[in-house]
Every structure is written in structure tokens, then in C-alpha cells.
């Protein structure tokens, strides 16, 4: 096993173990912390595959943005830390069927996609390609996603202001 493989399995282990802990822990603050390690593990795997831009954006958006907002929600909610959240299992049969279908779809996709062979060995930055694809081939989807985010922002602001008007 080469150094590359060792590092890959290390990141994979961190990701899987912490993801498992996120869904099984009973303390919501601890769940948020385990999520931090999951995001880090995924970022590490991206970096290992040579996707430098995606790896850093993963850190900036998920760890630096979304998880901070989750922690905000947890911290500003009174006495949430002492609540035991339920993490048992119900409806096992239905869940197994849905998960089976989902796993099957993922596996068919994995087997039918032509993957780039020998990734990560070339240290070429991916930013110029991503940039030109975003403003040439995928420009419509890119703009639509921007508008979608703007709508979400305006919606959030209007919901937040509503309570003030009622007073």
C-alpha cells in the first residue's frame, strides 16, 4: 500500500466514522461537531483526487458557512443542549426498501460512468477549466442557481420581518 492509499483510507475512515456518529449521537451539539469532521474528511478526499478548488470551496461553504449557521441555531436556542434527541429506528422495512433503491441507483451510476483514470497524480489547477465551463457551457444553469439563491434570501428576509409588523 502506497502513501497515497494510506492517506485516502485515513480520510475515508474519518468521514465514515464521524458521519455515523452524527446520526447516532444523542447530543445535538456533539452531532454538529461530528459533522465538522465529516466535512473535513470529504474535503481531504477532494484534495487527494486533485480537485483543489472543490476541496477549498467545500471548506469555505460547508465548514465556514453552513456549519457556523447550524451552531448559531444551536447556541441561540435556549436549553437545547440538555435535550436528549431520539435516534432510534422505526419503519425498518420501508426504510430498507427506499435505501435499497437509492443504493442501487448510485451503484448503476458508478458502474456506468467512465471515470478519469489515475487522478491526483497531475498537479494542474482546475480553476481555469471550471471558470470557463461556468460562463460558457453551463452559463444558464449558473445564472438560474444565482436567482434561486436570491429568491431564498428575499424569502428568508420577508419571513424574518413578518413578526415585527404584527406587533
Amino acid at each position, binding site marked *: 500500500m502506497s502513501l497515497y492509499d494510506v492517506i485516502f483510507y485515513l480520510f475515508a475512515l474519518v468521514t465514515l466514522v464521524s458521519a455515523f456518529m452524527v446520526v447516532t449521537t444523542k447530543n445535538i451539539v456533539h452531532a454538529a461537531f461530528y459533522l465538522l469532521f465529516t466535512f473535513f474528511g470529504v474535503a481531504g478526499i477532494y484534495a487527494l483526487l486533485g480537485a*483543489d478548488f472543490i476541496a477549498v470551496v467545500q471548506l*469555505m461553504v460547508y465548514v*465556514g458557512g453552513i456549519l*457556523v449557521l447550524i451552531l*448559531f441555531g444551536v447556541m441561540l436556542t435556549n436549553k437545547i443542549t440538555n435535550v436528549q434527541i431520539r435516534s432510534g429506528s422505526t419503519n425498518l422495512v420501508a426504510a430498507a426498501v427506499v435505501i435499497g433503491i437509492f443504493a442501487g441507483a448510485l451503484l448503476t451510476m458508478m458502474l456506468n460512468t467512465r471515470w478519469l483514470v489515475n487522478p491526483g497524480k497531475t498537479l494542474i489547477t482546475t*480553476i481555469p477549466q471550471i471558470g470557463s465551463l461556468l460562463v460558457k457551457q453551463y452559463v444558464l444553469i449558473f445564472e438560474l442557481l444565482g436567482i434561486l439563491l436570491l429568491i431564498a434570501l428575499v424569502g428568508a428576509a420577508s419571513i424574518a420581518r413578518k413578526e415585527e409588523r404584527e406587533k
Partner: protein
Amino acid sequence: MNVWQLILITLVKIIIIITILLLSVSYLVLFERKISAWAQNRYGPNRVGYWGLLQPFADVFKLLLKEDIVPEAANKFIHSLAPFIALFIAFSTYAVIPFGPQVKIFGEPIKLVVADVNIGVLYVLALTSLGVYGITLAGWSSGSKYSLLGGVRSSAQMISYEVSMGFSIAGVLLTAHSLRPIAIVNAQYGWMWNAILQPIGFITFTVAAFAETNRMPFDLPEAEPELVGGYHTEYSSMKFAGFFLAEYANMIIASAMIVTLYLGGWQIPYIDKLGLSMGLTTILQILAFVVKVGIMLFIFIWVRWTVPRFRYDQLMNLGWKVMFPLSLLNLIWAALLVMIFNL
């Protein structure tokens, strides 16, 4: 060069940089006290060593010998973890900042930067966005309302000013055509410094850097008259010192980033016209970098002891209604520069 050689060279670089950074952080504290003394017509520390030069060591020993108190209501584990997160992020950011051109030592070309990565600027942005964690977790885990308020203020402030910081950097990236710090410095050859090409971006980035490092006039997270000490109210001994060190290390990193992105890094205009030898040029260029960072640090301290603190609504208004439009304006300006002059 094989893998082990590369690891060895990188380790040596890391040790040198950490040592220099730790020493300069402790002396920065002394200089802050000296400059504040000059600003207020006092002497400042002058009892430990000549001109107070041994004061940093006395301070560290004092803090080491103090009792470490953890409040009853605190979340013990996170309370201890938070200062380490703050320190770790402060010191690992320095990995991508180049402090000199490429040199040859024993025939091996060595770049004077720990990690020369393609996405260096993004790496710094990502780590600054992680910097929120140290302060937020410290504020939350202390179990005190002053700490919590400080932590919340700090996160809101850092998230708001990250926006204008990112847009100011985008202007620099446009003219440099790269996210690699060394390429950005090389693009500012001669007098083509970004501070001269994009003065608005320089100002917005510097102000955002002040806000990101929680320095006066943006130090609301630890506003003494309202919050006792803010997020570090419940910290004592070396844990408090950890936050203190991280704050000053962040100041050095912010200055180094300003110098790299806007003030030409290690560049000295027209030095290659003088016909000096390679070695002398390199030493002068490293010195130029150090001097530029020193001047920025002086400005950081100078502002702290001159400008009063903002009110919270003023801070948010400045961030979203002034800084953000200005940084967008700078981005358009930079795009025009690239389009018209083909920089």
C-alpha cells in the same frame, strides 16, 4: 528531489517560520504597549531588561504560573479546545504566504514559502472563515452570557466582513490571472503594485482585515465597557494567553496578506537595475517584505490607540452599505483595467 527530501525541507521551513512567528508575536505585544505609551505620553514597560526588552518573557512566565480556572457552568472539553482551534488556525494560515523569491541553497532551488499551492489565496480565505470557530466555541462553552454575546457578535461581524474581503481579493486575482500568492507578487513587478492600481480595493481589504482580526475600531467581541472581556471573559492562565497569541498572530498574517496582495510582497522597484549580486538582492528583498509587514503592523497598532470603537449598528451599516458596494465597484474597476490595458 524525492519525497523524503521534500518532507525534510518543508519541516525545516515550518520550524523556522513558527519560531520567527512566535518570537515576533511576543515582541509585537511589547511594541503595542510601547506605542500605546507614546500615544498617551507615558514611558511604557521599561523595568524588565533594557528598554523593557525582556518584558514578553516575564509575561509568559506569569501567565504559565497562574491558576487555570474553568467555570462550573462550562462545557469542559470545548472550553479547553477553543484556544487551540484559534491558535492552530492562526499559525497554519502562514503556510502559503511567500516572504522572498526563489533561492538556491546547496544547489537546490528552494522557494521561500512553506507550501506553494495553486489556490493559496482561497486557502487563506477558507482558514479565516474557520477562524470564527475558535471565538464562537469559546463564547458558547464558557456558560456565561457575556462570553456568549461576545461570541455571537464576533461571528456576525466576521461573516459580514468576509464578503467585502472576498470581493476585494477578486480584483487582485483578475489582474494577477492566478490564485497562487507567488504569481500575485510577481505580477506586481516594479511599481505595478495593486495598492496603486486598485486603491479602493486596498482600502476595503485593509478595513475588512481590521474587522476580521477583531482589532479596534472593530473589537466589539471583547468590548470591555459592555461585555467585561467578551468571548474570553471566563479564560485564565495559558488558555487566555492562547487567545492573546492568536489575536497577535492574526494581526501579523493580516499584515502579510495586505503586503502580498497589495504592496508588492518582497518586490523592490528597480532593484534589478542596480546590478547587485543575486545573494544581496535576495536578502534585500526579504528585508523589504519584513519592513513592509512592520509598517502595516504599526498602522494596526496606531489605529487602535487613535480611533474609538464603533457602535454595533454602525459596524453592520458600514459592512453592508459602504464596504460591500465599494468592493463591488473595485471589482468593476479591476475588470476594466484588465479589459482596456490587457494587464
